[in-house]
Structures are given as structure tokens and as C-alpha cells.
């Protein structure tokens, strides 16, 4: 191998540079977020917790398309409880705090969904009432 002296240190520097985010924090991904459970004591959701955790965004997109494009505004009944399709009308009825529930994981995973540009959180609604 030619230029062994430059190639090998070069490769090592490259690998270290690329894996910088991994080792810089001491191989630790930081404290796992603990989203706040519903204050009303609700235990059931429309899907099991791990499925919701993994694919709530797909479900929300499906609901959105049902409601807006196919006019399917019927309620979803799970375990005897009726849920209206919608972030504002179903999810945030139980998970009332965007900051303490949604944002905990979204910030951890560095995703920035724009749901709340339009959809009103219960917090925003109460704030509006106070100021007026």
C-alpha cells in the first residue's frame, strides 16, 4: 500500500469526525423523554401505546384525508369510547398539553411538526379567553 502513513491516519480522523455526535455525548443519548400521561386518568387510546408512539403521524394523516377528502367525519369507537377524528378533537381532549406531551418527544427527536400552526391547543384556547 502506497502512502500508508497518510491514508490510515486520514481514515481514522474521518471516522472520528463522522461519529462525532455519537461519542461527543459519551455514548449517551440523553434522558429519555417522559411525556405526561392524561390528567383525566384515561388509560386507553385509539391504538396501543407502542403503536401510537411509532405511527401516530400516519394515523393523523389518514384521519385528515378521511375527513377532508372523503368526507368521512364519522367517529372512531375504541373500547366503547367514541373519538372524533382530529388532533384537536380527539388527541388533545386527553393529552391537553402540547408542551408536556407532544413537545417532549418532538424536541428529543428534533422533529418540528407544524400541527399547531392551525390546530388550537387547549392551552392556547384558555389563554385567548383570559386576554379578552
Amino acid at each position, binding site marked *: 500500500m502506497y502512502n500508508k502513513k497518510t491514508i490510515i491516519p486520514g481514515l481514522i480522523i474521518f471516522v472520528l469526525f463522522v461519529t462525532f455526535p455519537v461519542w461527543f455525548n459519551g455514548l449517551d443519548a440523553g434522558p429519555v423523554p417522559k411525556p405526561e400521561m392524561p390528567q383525566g386518568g384515561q388509560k386507553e387510546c385509539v391504538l396501543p401505546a407502542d403503536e401510537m408512539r411509532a405511527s401516530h403521524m400516519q394515523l393523523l394523516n389518514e384521519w*385528515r384525508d378521511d375527513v*377532508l*377528502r*372523503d*368526507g368521512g*367525519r*364519522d367517529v372512531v369507537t375504541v373500547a366503547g369510547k367514541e373519538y372524533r377524528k382530529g388532533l*384537536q*378533537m380527539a388527541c388533545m381532549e386527553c393529552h391537553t398539553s402540547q408542551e408536556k406531551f407532544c413537545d417532549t418527544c418532538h424536541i428529543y427527536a428534533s422533529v418540528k411538526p*407544524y400541527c399547531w*400552526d*392551525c*390546530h*388550537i391547543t*387547549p392551552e*392556547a*384556547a384558555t389563554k*385567548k*379567553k383570559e386576554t*379578552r
Partner: protein
Amino acid sequence: MDNQRRKFLKIAGASALAGIGAPTLVKLTAGDALAAAKAPADGHGAAAKDHGPEVPAGIRLAMVIDMRVIAAKPHLLDKAITACNEVHNIPDFGGDRKNEIKWLWKASFEAVLTDKSYTRLSKMVQNTDFPVLCNHCENPPCVRACPTKATFKLEKNGIVAMDYHRCIGCRFCMAACPYGARSFNWQDPRPFVKKYNNDFPTRMRGVVEKCNFCSERLALGQEPACVEACEGAITFGDINDPHSEISKVLDKEFTIQRKPTLGTNPSVFYIV
């Protein structure tokens, strides 16, 4: 050598002839067969399709606005506009024409029914504001203009709907709409919404919005907010159903639509 060239030219000529002739031949023979197969399924056949009005199918929600009632009680219109604004979290920019968001608004006869003559208008027409809203056209030009399919016609009930998630704010639909029924959010509307209706979202900066015929209320079996607030000045229903209340009104009264010459076929009718 010559013999071969002669043969080649013959084959080439025959092939060319066959190539040009075959599609025509297929068209001629298969055309008859297709027509024969199609005719019984159509019922009245092609003749009825080419001439006379199309037979309406499905639900087509529409509105009849009785201006005689509104002329007598103009406060009803204000009530309807307020109801609409409250239900849909519509911001109030206080007379700022550039930012203004309109779902249901007031305009004069000249501005609303532009293709009518107004040499001598009756006092009633001169002194009354007309309610204007999205016409939910049968042939909506905004839908054709939208490059992202953010606005579309619901085949289920004929409502021209919006999906704000998809709107990129290009405003082609605003240019296409001959009725000015669409408004653009030049800024975040939230600070200008007086009170939130928690069951309906607001919009964000950079999207176009318009009347949705209260789709969300219809799903709950309620009438549109303006219809409810107007106490009988507006009739709402399916005009494809000959037994609906609105069909009876349309059968009885002479109604006009906005700019009928454009061929959009609006679903909002006025009794003047």
C-alpha cells in the same frame, strides 16, 4: 441484384400500405361493435347524451338566499356573518381590505350580480346588502387552477373543499375564482381571532381560505351556521333531490345565480 431490389420495394410498399390502412380498418369495424355493445347500457343511447341537459346524479348541496327576507330584516345578515366568523375562527382585521378574510360577506347588487342591468334599480335592491359566499360551483375554476389539489370538489355532496395542509399559497385559485370568494392569509391570523371555537382549527400564514359550506356542521346533522342564524332567509339542501325543501323553493320562485355566462354553474341562488 435488380431482382432483389424490386422484391424489396414491393414488400416495403405493401407493408407501408398495411400499416396506414390497418388502424382505419380496425376503427371502422370495431366502432360499430363498440357502439352496439354500449347502446343498451346507456339506456337512451348517445343521442340523449349529446343533446339536452345532463341528468343530475348524486347529491349537490346548494343554497337559496331570499333577498326579500333580508331586505326586510337586514340585521339577519349581520347575525349570519357573525355566526360564520365565530364558528370558523375567522380573524377580524377591522376594515383592513388587504388582510381581510371573507367567508360570508356583504356586497351591493352591482358588485354581486354584475351581469344584470342596473339602469333603474328598485329601492329594495339599492338599499340592501347582498350576502356573498363561495358558490360551490358545479364546474369550479379554482379546482382546475390549483397545482397541488389543495382545493377539490367533494364528489359526495358537490362541496368545493379546501385542504389547508396542502395549500402552498400560490393564489392561482384566487385568480381563477370569478366571485372573489377566496382570501389569502398575508399574516398569522391568530392574534386577530376574537374567540376560538375549539372544535375548528384556525389557518396559518400563507394559505388561501374560503367558505366550506359548514362541512363540519353538516357531518353532525346541523345546518350551516349562516342558514341557522338567518331564520329562514336562506334555504339549504340537495337540489338533485326533487323532494327536498330547496327543490320546492327553486320550483316555485324565479332565482338568479352570479355570472351564469361563465359556465361555472354556481350552487348559490338568489331570489330578488
